[in-house]
């Protein structure tokens, strides 16, 4: 059973209304999920229908003539070669669409953190988490939304198993108490608005020491 972003998140992605960080996490999920690519295509069709039925605003005089001049200066369009499939996420290279990545930093025993540098402002932080098998993340909730895509390994949360490509789309109402599944180191890509609020006893103890 795969875990997907919420429909409203996919719709916002299709409409171009997600901030850069959340877009990156959704795009990562899409690169691994045909079903959600289909859903985004459906929501794009909704956008197309809205575009078609909008009340038009007249272009200024001469706009069409300018466009005709512009296409005269275009080189003849050539049929493009189909680009080779290019996965958004390549686990081996740990490269992410050319975004600059910070160094892995130690957060807590068995847990490392690495920043993904997205220049767009807007209060969403993007980072990767790397956790060893069997690690229990302290119970926590969020002051904003948190969108996570598993890149490798798996974690167990809310009775579900989240493996590579699976997405957890949580808001401040969801309490989290995930555990890393046995077997493999788990790496996740996370876009987080607001801050983590650690709710467990252990969590409240380490809260002052972590900055995620």
């Amino acid at each position, binding site marked *: 059973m795969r875990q997907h972003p919420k429909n409203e998140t996919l719709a916002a992605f299709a409409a171009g209304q997600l901030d850069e960080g959340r877009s990156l996490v959704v795009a990562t999920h899409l690169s691994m999920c045909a079903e959600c690519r289909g859903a985004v*295509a459906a929501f794009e069709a*909704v956008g*197309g229908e809205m575009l078609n039925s909008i009340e038009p605003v007249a272009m200024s005089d001469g706009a069409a003539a300018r466009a005709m001049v512009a296409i005269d200066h275009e080189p003849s*369009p050539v049929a493009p070669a189909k680009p080779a499939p290019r996965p958004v996420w390549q686990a081996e290279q740990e490269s992410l669409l050319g975004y600059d990545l910070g160094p892995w930093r130690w957060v807590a025993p068995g847990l490392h953190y690495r920043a993904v540098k997205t220049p767009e402002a807007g209060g969403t932080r993007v980072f990767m988490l790397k956790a060893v098998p069997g690690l229990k993340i302290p119970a926590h909730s969020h002051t904003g939304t948190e969108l996570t895509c598993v890149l490798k390994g798996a974690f167990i949360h809310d009775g579900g198993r989240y493996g590579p490509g699976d997405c957890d789309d949580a808001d401040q109402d969801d309490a989290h108490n995930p555990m890393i599944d046995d077997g493999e180191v788990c790496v996740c890509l996370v876009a987080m608005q607001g801050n983590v609020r650690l709710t467990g006893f252990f969590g409240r103890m380490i809260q002052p020491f972590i900055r995620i």
Partner: protein
Amino acid sequence: MQAQAQDIGLIKAALPAGLLAKADRLHDSPTQIDAVKSPAELARLIEAVAARQDRAAFAALFDHFAPRIKAFLMRGNTPAAAAEELAQEALLTVWRKASQFDRQRAGASSWIFAIARNLRIDSARREMRGKVLDLEANEDAEPPAPPDAELLASEREQRVRAALVHLTDEQLRVVRLSFFDGKAHGDIAAELELPLGTVKSRIRLAMNRLRDVLGDLT
């Protein structure tokens, strides 16, 4: 034909939701609000640009889409002059990328919507960085569309129109404000004088409903 399309629009407005899908299946003529050009006609225009750099076809596309893209961008708070420039850029992109259009994958309006959306994202991020997510790279990795995909794509367009009519007025309103106009949930709540939670749950319900109606076509 045009009169028939308008009749269907009137019928759709009067019919209870459950009968609309049936009404759509009974008529294969275009049922969109703007009956000037059918989706198939728009698709043919893009294909004419791709096949032979057809200038008349491009001019027709410009007349249809440029004022709509300008309107779309202005509703998202892009100033008129910038919206006009982006609409020009969008149509120039249509000229350049026409050969990538595949009516088996997407309708003409959906394809051009995605172009305008990407340009808007691009222009918003341009001053911060030169790079945006290349969504099309993923689309190109898809296997070839099956032979009946064209039927599915046109059925999808029908279904999208029917699905939008299925939404309640309140749902349609928040969907437009949120996804089309790019308003933050808090601003929508203030504008409609609704609690934030109500706005969020309306959006969630509307999107789930659209997905229910559209999901099995994808």
